[in-house]
């Protein structure tokens, strides 16, 4: 017997009919239910998938389009019957696979709440008690008795999420549902999801927003071609997913061979030199990126990207010599650094942390040298959510997020601990000469 809130999937297979002639094949597919020998051609979208989710886990399903994520969610939700295999779900399940579906344009917002609430399994009396809270959460007090066709897409999304969040459940299933709505609404949804997470409910989500996954998920399952290619911690999962994406773009085993063995880490230190996961706005911060490589990979264009996870905003790009890709040109030399066998550290000294309160993620990109005017990031490799950072204000009155594209940097240092090779020695000498020349020019 499964514990409440648990999901178990064993050897799951899902096949869809392949249409040559839609009507004829649909007819055959329906007949095929009774006459099993007469089955249309099929496409297998999930191929012997097995995994389990424990109560209270937040699991993210990632994968390229067509990998089978939505089909898997539909089978778990009970919307789709599997071709073979077992699916066990214990607990009340709330599946939010699309925003605003089921709402009738001619109904008012209030009528739609009752109509869809009933469809979602709520009793009418229970629903009538919940309606005021739902309207308040959706902030639609003024428009709730207007016809639904007068609502903007943001208002529709707010109403849909507010209703879904009000339904009692043990397990919630989300399919890229937070990709809609304005940033204020998205922030509100995240707060609600955090509450759900803290209350010990199980969350199974599909998202292409890696920052969102890094913030929320405790485990990542990567699907590719209907099979599970990774099932484990978030960082590893995102790396595998990034590799799949990059392979799809670059298509090269060469790229994987080149960047696969690299280990990239990132640490944030506060003004006391302690490693920090939380910083205060205005506090001095040191960001240290470490790249470990088993062999020389030569000059690399290195970018550190800071993203506001909750709002999905890009805050800044930091580079070894160009402090901000969108802002001021740094004083020091060129944009690429040599990555040799061993350890390379790049440190950014930030005198004052300038973003607003929130949760931030650091992503790293390494790739071949590129023209700074037309940056091409398709040939390199991304490491997503290498590190996360929470930022807060001391003053309650200053709550809220802000974006800082121009990050103040008081210094950038590159240090190396190489396994000495001829290539490394040559490159280091070359870079020292460049740095020396610039230093003299600055003097």
């Amino acid at each position, binding site marked *: 017997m499964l514990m409440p809130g648990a999901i178990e999937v064993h050897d799951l297979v899902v096949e869809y009919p392949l249409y040559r002639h839609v009507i004829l094949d649909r*007819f055959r597919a329906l007949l095929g239910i009774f006459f099993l020998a007469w089955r249309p051609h099929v496409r297998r979208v999930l191929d012997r998938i097995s995994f389990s989710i424990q109560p209270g886990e937040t699991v993210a399903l990632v994968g390229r389009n067509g990998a089978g994520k939505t089909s898997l969610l539909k089978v778990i939700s009970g919307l789709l019957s599997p071709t073979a295999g077992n*699916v066990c779900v214990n607990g009340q399940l709330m*599946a939010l696979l699309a925003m605003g579906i089921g709402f009738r344009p001619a109904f008012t917002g209030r009528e739609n709440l009752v109509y869809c609430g009933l469809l979602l399994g709520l009793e009418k009396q229970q629903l009538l008690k919940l309606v005021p809270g739902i309207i308040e959460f959706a902030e639609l007090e003024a428009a709730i008795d207007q016809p639904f066709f007068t609502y903007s897409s943001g208002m529709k999304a707010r109403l849909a999420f507010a209703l879904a969040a009000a339904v009692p459940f043990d397990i919630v299933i989300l399919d890229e549902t937070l990709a809609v709505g304005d940033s204020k609404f998205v922030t509100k949804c995240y707060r609600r999801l955090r509450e759900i997470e803290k209350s010990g409910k199980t969350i199974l989500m599909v998202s292409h927003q890696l920052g969102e996954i890094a913030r929320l998920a405790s485990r990542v399952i990567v699907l590719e071609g209907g099979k599970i290619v990774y099932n484990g911690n978030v960082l590893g999962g995102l790396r595998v997913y990034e590799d799949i994406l990059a392979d799809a773009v670059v298509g090269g085993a060469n790229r994987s061979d080149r960047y696969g063995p690299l280990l990239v880490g990132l640490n944030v230190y506060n003004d006391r030199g302690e490693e920090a996961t939380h910083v205060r706005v205005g506090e001095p911060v040191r960001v240290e990126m470490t790249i470990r490589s088993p062999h020389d990979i030569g000059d690399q264009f290195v970018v550190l990207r800071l993203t506001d996870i909750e709002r999905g905003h890009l805050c800044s790009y930091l580079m070894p010599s160009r402090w901000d890709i969108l802002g001021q040109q740094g004083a020091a030399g060129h944009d690429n650094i040599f990555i040799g066998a061993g350890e390379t550290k790049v440190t950014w000294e930030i005198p004052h942390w300038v973003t607003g309160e929130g949760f931030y993620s650091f992503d790293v990109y390494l790739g071949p040298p590129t023209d700074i005017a037309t940056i091409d990031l398709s040939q390199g490799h991304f490491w997503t959510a290498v590190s996360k950072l929470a930022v807060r204000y001391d003053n309650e009155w200053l709550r809220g997020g802000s974006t800082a594209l121009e990050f103040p940097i008081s210094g950038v240092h590159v240090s190396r601990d190489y396994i000495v090779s001829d290539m490394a020695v040559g490159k280091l000498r070359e870079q020292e000469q460049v740095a020396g020349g610039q230093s003299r020019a600055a003097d």
Partner: protein
Amino acid sequence: MTRRSNSSVAPEYEIGWIGDEMINLSKMARLVLNLAWIEFKAQRKDTFLGWGWIVLWPALQAGGLLLVVGTLRGDTGVTSLRTMIATYLGVLVWSTAVGVIMGNLGILQTHREMIVHIRFPFIVLPVVDVTVKYLVFLTQLFIGVGLWLLLVPHATWGLMLVDVLVFVVVFYLALIATAWIVSLLGLAAPDLSFILPPVFLLLLTLSPVFHSDQGVLSPLVYYVNSLNPLSFVVSSWYAAIDIHESGPQLPWVLLIGTVVVLAAAYKLAMVMYREVAKVL
């Protein structure tokens, strides 16, 4: 709630609440009534006459058809009040049945987005559609039967009302069974939505609604009519309200038969609807 799918060939799997049939029937009935009531209230919003159309529409339909069929038959003289009310009552039953058939042919396609995105027992969709139409039908029936009792003297009106009551239950159950079957037929053969309207119109003009004396019709038409289930329903209805002396006076047998058909249609819908999401 634990859901499980086991077999590699024909997996047992529940969609929403369908699996726990008997336990959830009362819950589904409440759901159907609530949804139907919301739809029923909202349906008349978009017109100026609103609820007025409930009575006006079948009256117009009956009047128009009576005129056309009477002209074609070469009728002369004034149509009696009895004939007008009888036609109105016959058209009510016929148009409700045809409305359910036509409305449910494309119901799964119409609600495709809901079916593939929201977890709910979508087996109730045809039942909600039938119930909304039935609420309209009952309102019309109440007025029609009231007029019938008021204007045409009946010695055994108490017995007639019992027959009407039995017919109302049988007709509702039969319509639900029809809706489930038709919704699947419409998915497999969508061309039916183009073929059926003229066929139904033709059958209506030949039906007992406009031909109280079936013996007058040609043998071929009589044969077609006797095979037409809608004509059978209208004949039963007319027998129940004593419009025709002859006719299938079998409301109780009909009730049992309908329950059996309904159970079979429910089972069929349960099996087929599981696969619907894949072919939609």
